[in-house]
């Protein structure tokens, strides 16, 4: 083969990202008849966080890389639009809304901001949805979060969100979260269930989980624009299709993985609470001021927000129409 694409993600081989990459590699290598080889480097072998790895994408030393929205926020702050709470109802809506115009809008913005170096290929999922979980009590209404110390990453948006809901944001590095929960440095966290279980947080006292689904755990897949554009057009088509396959794999994988995780959580004595539609509305209402904050304070926030809103509206319409056809 003539071309080697070097792909990396900072997670490990148990992660959805790896499932996606394996599918990508398999598709691209066979569909290109071996013209393209894909090398997968999981973890921090090449680079260890969003800023570092996107640097590698920008200068072409890495071809493909996955970040969460937090990981890319340092260069493309508007990608955090997917961290905004309660904008998308469920997986079906998200999976219809993300591809197409929304992805294209973000891709164009990112290409422009990176001087045509960093190209968004697709948006998948990594770990389902974020929920509030804590060591103290069952959370049914926003008032239950009052004053609770919630762990966030070091980024404005999640901190602002936690503040908006009346809780107290506490930035703690991921590897230290276990001991911080154990010793009461923080009382709660906002994570997907698979991360909660793989980090054994219940052993640190994390007992109460409210399935509010306040944010989609999006995975942004980036590629070096130079590497991509250097491919002949037919191979570009293969790569694009490969990312489609990758996206579908990462949509599916967390759903399958979370089943066991939820069962384990409950078996460990965890309290799993599903808020009623009214309670969910109360959360959405309490969080609403964050939308304006986002549009005002985040560069490109306005454009990204309306792109997402339009895409969600269109997706809901399509889904409803399709559902009507299917049930009658």
């Amino acid at each position: 083969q003539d071309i080697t694409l070097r792909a990396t993600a900072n997670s490990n081989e148990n992660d959805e990202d790896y499932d996606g990459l394996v599918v990508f590699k398999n598709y691209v290598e066979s569909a290109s008849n071996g013209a393209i080889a894909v090398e997968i480097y999981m973890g921090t072998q090449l680079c260890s966080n969003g800023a570092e790895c996107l640097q590698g994408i920008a200068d072409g030393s890495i071809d493909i890389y996955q970040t969460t929205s937090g990981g890319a926020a340092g260069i493309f702050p508007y990608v955090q639009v997917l961290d905004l709470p309660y904008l998308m109802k469920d997986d079906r809506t998200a999976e219809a809304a993300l591809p197409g115009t929304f992805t294209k809008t973000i891709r164009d913005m990112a290409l422009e901001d990176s001087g045509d170096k960093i190209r968004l290929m697709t948006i998948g999922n990594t770990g389902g949805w974020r929920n509030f979980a804590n060591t103290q009590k069952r959370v049914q209404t926003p008032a239950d979060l009052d004053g609770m110390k919630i762990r966030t990453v070091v980024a404005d948006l999640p901190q602002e969100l936690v503040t908006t809901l009346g809780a107290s944001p506490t930035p703690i590095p991921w590897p230290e979260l276990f001991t911080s929960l154990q010793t009461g440095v923080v009382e709660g966290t906002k994570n997907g269930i698979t991360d909660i279980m793989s980090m054994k947080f219940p052993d640190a006292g994390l007992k109460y989980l409210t399935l509010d689904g306040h944010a989609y755990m999006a995975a942004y897949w980036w590629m070096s624009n130079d590497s991509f554009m250097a491919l002949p057009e037919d191979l570009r088509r293969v790569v694009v299709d490969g990312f489609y396959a990758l996206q579908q794999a990462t949509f599916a994988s967390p759903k399958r993985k979370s089943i066991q995780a939820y069962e384990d959580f409950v078996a460990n004595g965890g309290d799993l609470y599903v808020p009623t539609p009214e309670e969910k509305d109360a959360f959405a209402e309490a969080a609403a001021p964050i939308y304006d904050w986002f549009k005002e304070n985040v560069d490109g926030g306005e454009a990204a927000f309306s792109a997402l809103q339009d895409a969600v509206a269109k997706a809901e319409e399509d889904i409803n129409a399709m559902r009507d056809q299917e049930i009658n």
Partner: protein
Amino acid sequence: MGLILLRVANVLQRLNTRVLWIGTSLAAVAITLMVVAILVQVFFRYVLNSALPWPEEAARFLMLWMTGLAAPAAYRRGAFVSIDLLEFALPRRVGAVLSLLLLLIALAVLGMALQFGWKHVQSGWLFNSSSLKLPLGLIGMKAVKIKLAWMYMSLFVGFAMLAVVNIELILRSVLKVMGRDEGLDPLPVMTIAEAE
């Protein structure tokens, strides 16, 4: 020829002594501020029960600059670890030629570092720091996030200073091979080093 080299070496010697003194002093300030930043972080988290977003990144920023500013002085004092058995085992002249060769390899590495370091700094203008802002809010403007290029510059500056030191060491080494190094001040020596 030897005389010209000796003059250049003398100039570099004076330049390095001063620049490195400034670098080391700034590095001492940086390590002090690092301690302060982390203590502030602990204080806010435990005593005031509200964590601050910036101390961790600020302390890393300072540590990078501490490294870039202090390492060249340490290099000049011979504090970079190496296995120096061979140089001592060889006859004096041959040993001097070997150490000249080693310095040239080091110079090549530093040249490479400067070339890629410059690109690295340039690329840093694209990226914002995640928590460090210029507090322009104080003068009525919007706070602006600091570009990572300001952090990236730390090592680039360090490598530039290392390269100048390395050139001085090469000149000294050439003069030593020629047997004309008696006109130079001896290099300062670092007493105790090492993490061990």
